């Protein structure tokens, strides 16, 4: 009886042709001729490897696998394209819609109903945005041949012929105006009338304002900032 059997690792190497040294190969073969245990181990190992090798021939993927996989690849590709482009397209639509809406608001005529948005009607004044509001009001007053008596931090006081006041009032737009109708024009440089009352004051947009004007009458006004 042979006491020293071939280690399994060596048998395994032998099966894989990993025992390179010729003499060692010869020794192993000679040992297996004498030792039935090692010979049996070696044959079992070879048989097992042979079965494994047979599995290679018998484990076969489905025939339509390539077709299905390529279809899955195409589907994924389409989905990814869609996922990439849809948000961009949606963002573009929102942007274009927003711009269009903004443009329609800007270009809408005064009083035009733009739906659910609370849109402020554009000012009838050709405002110079660079100029201050006081300069704008002074410009409007000059254009309407109004006399200016006083310019303070709170208001501009002056006088205008009654028949021109309605037009002036409309051009002043949203500004709050106190006025009083009188028969004689106030002299320029005179003290501001401390008793000017809120008679007929208007603080709306002024678009609908009208004053039944009488010849020779004057309107004394204060335009508040």
């Amino acid at each position, binding site marked *: 009886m042979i006491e020293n059997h071939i280690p399994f690792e060596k048998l395994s190497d032998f099966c894989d042709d990993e025992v390179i040294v010729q003499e060692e190969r010869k020794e192993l073969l000679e040992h297996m001729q004498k030792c039935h245990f090692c010979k049996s181990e070696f044959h079992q190992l070879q048989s097992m*490897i042979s079965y494994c090798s*047979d599995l290679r021939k018998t484990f076969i993927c489905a025939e339509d696998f390539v077709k299905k996989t390529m279809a899955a690849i195409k589907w994924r590709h389409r989905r990814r394209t869609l996922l990439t482009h849809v948000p961009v397209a949606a963002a573009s639509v929102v942007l274009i819609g927003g711009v269009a809406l903004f443009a329609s608001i800007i270009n809408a005529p005064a009083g035009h109903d733009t739906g659910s948005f609370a849109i402020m009607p554009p000012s009838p004044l050709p405002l110079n945005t660079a100029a201050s509001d006081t300069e704008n009001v002074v410009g409007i007053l000059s254009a309407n041949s109004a006399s200016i008596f006083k310019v303070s931090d709170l208001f501009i006081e002056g006088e205008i012929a009654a028949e021109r006041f309605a037009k002036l009032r409309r051009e002043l737009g949203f500004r709050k105006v106190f006025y009083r109708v009188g028969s004689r024009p106030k002299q320029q440089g005179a003290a501001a009338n401390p008793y000017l009352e809120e008679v007929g004051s208007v603080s709306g947009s002024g678009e609908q304002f009208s004053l039944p004007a009488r010849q020779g009458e004057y309107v004394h006004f204060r335009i508040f900032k």
Partner: protein
Amino acid sequence: MLPIDDIEVVDKVLSGDTEAFSLIVERYRNMTFRYVYSRFNNYDEAMDITQDIFIMSLEALKSFRRESKFSTWFYSIMVNYCKNYRKKSKRYNVVPISGGKDDDEYELQIPDDRAGPEENVITNDSLRIVKDEIYRLPDDYKEVLVLRDIEGLSYNDISEMVGINLSNVKVRIHRGRELLKNRLSERGLI
């Protein structure tokens, strides 16, 4: 006409011809399926995972640096995918739709060049036992054993694919073989 090699196919795919990837799928499908099936032992699950591996490798194709063979690169993706899938399925307790390992319906394809139907049945049963015993091996042994004894890959390729050194590959193969041999012997197959 000479068959187009893997690198040429890769070039075609990278230049936009996705359809050319079907050549890769055709070439590697059986090997991939065998490896996956040996690890999960469920036909439907193995088919799905095999498909996912191809899809993933197509998506990762740009990262193929051509420093190794395409097959080695592809197999390393396969090995890693299976490892990650196993971890994920453990974490989320994934249950395959077709059931557990005992009710897998996959029928082994026995080539016609063998002897009569009786011998086919015997061979079929023997191979099923081998397949089941391989599946029962620890993952570390099973992984390298399948690549070596079923796929016939070299130790070096296995080392590169699995990401372990050569001596570890050998040790795992020897131990896996010893374990499998003993189990098959116990079942009277060898």
